[in-house]
């Protein structure tokens, strides 16, 4: 199967399916998803808990293997890559932001941000400049030498975003990035990501329950039981009025 070239999609999935074999019955976490995402999109994946948002994000990020179907990222079919090549692909192209921050606890904020660039073997001078720039942009200059344990939740998530941005990836995949943050911090983080999206045309895909994220997204994809039930590319976002959908409150 070849990638649809009618439009320059940077992420494309065809019949993407992920089935988990639990002890009793197989669970379709992602069910026959066909999805196209263009460069510079600011997209939210929404849906109730267990609807397959994180699984879809993991599949797009090459962290998980689909049971069926294909994923193209930048015209590269992910399942065609061997493990080593896939790790390298992620390193060069994708930035991850996790709900639980997942910073390296033994490294300082500076070192956490620098880490990905070290894996890319970037020169020391370039690394230092980029870290400095990201610390400025995320307002963490004063916290540069602090370890994650000494930072607040919001500061840790900003470090995580800065780390995801450090390698200048084309895509940022963020799994519930604001879930553990207070309103003010969440707004500040979203402002920062919206700015990067606008200024650097960076593609953002969020998995979220957070209304604040949904309100800012320019495209909202709703998943239920692993399938896309709604794909709304406009603002303001309106509820698809799903029965039993209690994960978020809609305006």
């Amino acid at each position, binding site marked *: 199967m070849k990638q649809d070239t009618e439009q320059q999609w940077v992420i494309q999935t065809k019949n993407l399916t992920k089935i988990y074999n639990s002890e009793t019955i197989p669970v379709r976490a992602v069910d026959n998803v066909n999805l196209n995402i263009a460069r510079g999109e600011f997209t939210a994946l929404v849906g109730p808990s267990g609807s397959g948002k994180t699984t879809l994000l993991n599949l797009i990020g090459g962290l998980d293997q689909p049971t069926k179907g294909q994923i193209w990222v930048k015209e590269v079919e992910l399942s065609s890559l061997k*493990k*080593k090549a896939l790790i390298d692909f*992620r390193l*060069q192209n994708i930035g*991850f932001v*996790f709900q639980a921050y997942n910073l390296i606890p*033994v490294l300082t904020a500076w*070192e956490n941000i620098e880490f*990905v660039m070290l894996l890319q073997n970037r020169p020391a001078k370039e690394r230092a400049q980029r870290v400095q720039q990201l610390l400025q942009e995320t307002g963490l200059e004063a916290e540069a030498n602090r370890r994650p344990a000494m930072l607040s939740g919001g500061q840790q998530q900003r470090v995580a975003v800065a*780390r995801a941005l450090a390698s200048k990836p084309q895509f940022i995949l963020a799994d519930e990035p604001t879930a553990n943050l207070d309103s003010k911090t969440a707004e500040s983080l979203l402002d920062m990501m919206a700015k990067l999206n606008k200024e650097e045309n960076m593609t953002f895909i969020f998995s979220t329950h957070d209304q604040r994220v949904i309100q800012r997204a320019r495209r909202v994809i709703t998943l239920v039981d692993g399938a896309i039930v709604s794909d709304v590319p406009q603002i303001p976002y309106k509820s698809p009025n799903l029965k039993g959908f209690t994960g978020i409150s809609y305006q």
Partner: protein
Amino acid sequence: MIFKMAWKNIWRNKVRTLIILISIVLGIWAGTFILAYAFGLIEQRVNDAIGYEVSHLQIHQPDYLLDNDPQFVIKKSTDLLNTIKKDERVKAASQRTLVHAMLATASNNAGAKTMGIEPQGENTVTQIASCIVDGEYLEDSDKNKILIGKKLAEKLKLKIRSKIVLTFQDTDKNIVSAAFRVKGVFSTYNAGLEQSTIYALKKDLDRLLNLKQEAHEIAILLQGADLVTDFTQEQKSKFAALSIRTWSEIVPELALMTNSLDQYLVIFLLIILLALSFGIINVMLMAVLERVREIGMLMAIGMSKLRLFFMVVLETCLVFCLAAPLGLLLAFGVITYLQNTGLDLSSAYGESYGALGFRTIIYPQLQAVYYLRIMLMVAVTAILASIYPAYTALRLEPVEAIRKI
């Protein structure tokens, strides 16, 4: 950065790291000290065997070795002795007349190997003169005087100047007896020597055995132990009719002990390291399994499996790198200290060590090359111990690992 992370990772749980560090330090210290102790013990035993009993090599009439009959003598032994003494590699040499005699006092009797010695010459070959604890050493001018071991003297209830009758077979197979007086009592580290050997003057025994310019044994002490093999080969080719044996041929059990000690101790050390490595594997595995989510994240953001493997291996190796020098340093300190003061085991193992011919004050010693060998063994153990925890980390799939809490 990998090194920095590995270093910081091992200090995440300071108590756990300190416990494992201490266990490695103590393991290496104990293993190294046991090596030094065993080498010291055996080295002393070998030196004592050479210094008090057999010398570096001995010459006999071959038939004498078969049944110890006094008729099997080295002819013109004095000439041979003088020839040997002229060799600059020879430190000292002495000839002896040997008989197996029955010792009788008014109330007791016992069998003993009687060595007829030339006091001046013997004093240069063995150290028996320095072991006199009562009375005096023999002199050439003495007549029918003996030196007796302390234990044998106690058994026969003999004191200085006590009279004792020696009975033995002469070269014509006649039984001869003669009365001797105790001139000195010696005491050595070796209970066996004390109980089974007495020293008389060679000239007295020669007279009783009808020997003239003959001896049963010539003992030779060389300038160094490293000369033994070459010197022996030369003498064997020169005096083909005689039996010339090195100390390792005379006391093969001691030679076997010396030769196999190295292997035994390496095996012993390997067992210690093997036990330690299981402790390390356990600790490092715990450290990996505690960080499953973090490892998943590292793989997710692009850390290659090779780098991850290297990081975990490095963590294990760093623990060993910290502990090994400390353990060796501790061992070096203790060994150096005891090399001067000695480790006195007389109160605990005095009798049993003495019965086996070992001294009860041990001076541990270890050549520098053994410290290097231990270091190498520790390094190999560290790498091997790190493989399983690192492999466990590698088997983690990022998505599975991130899901775990």
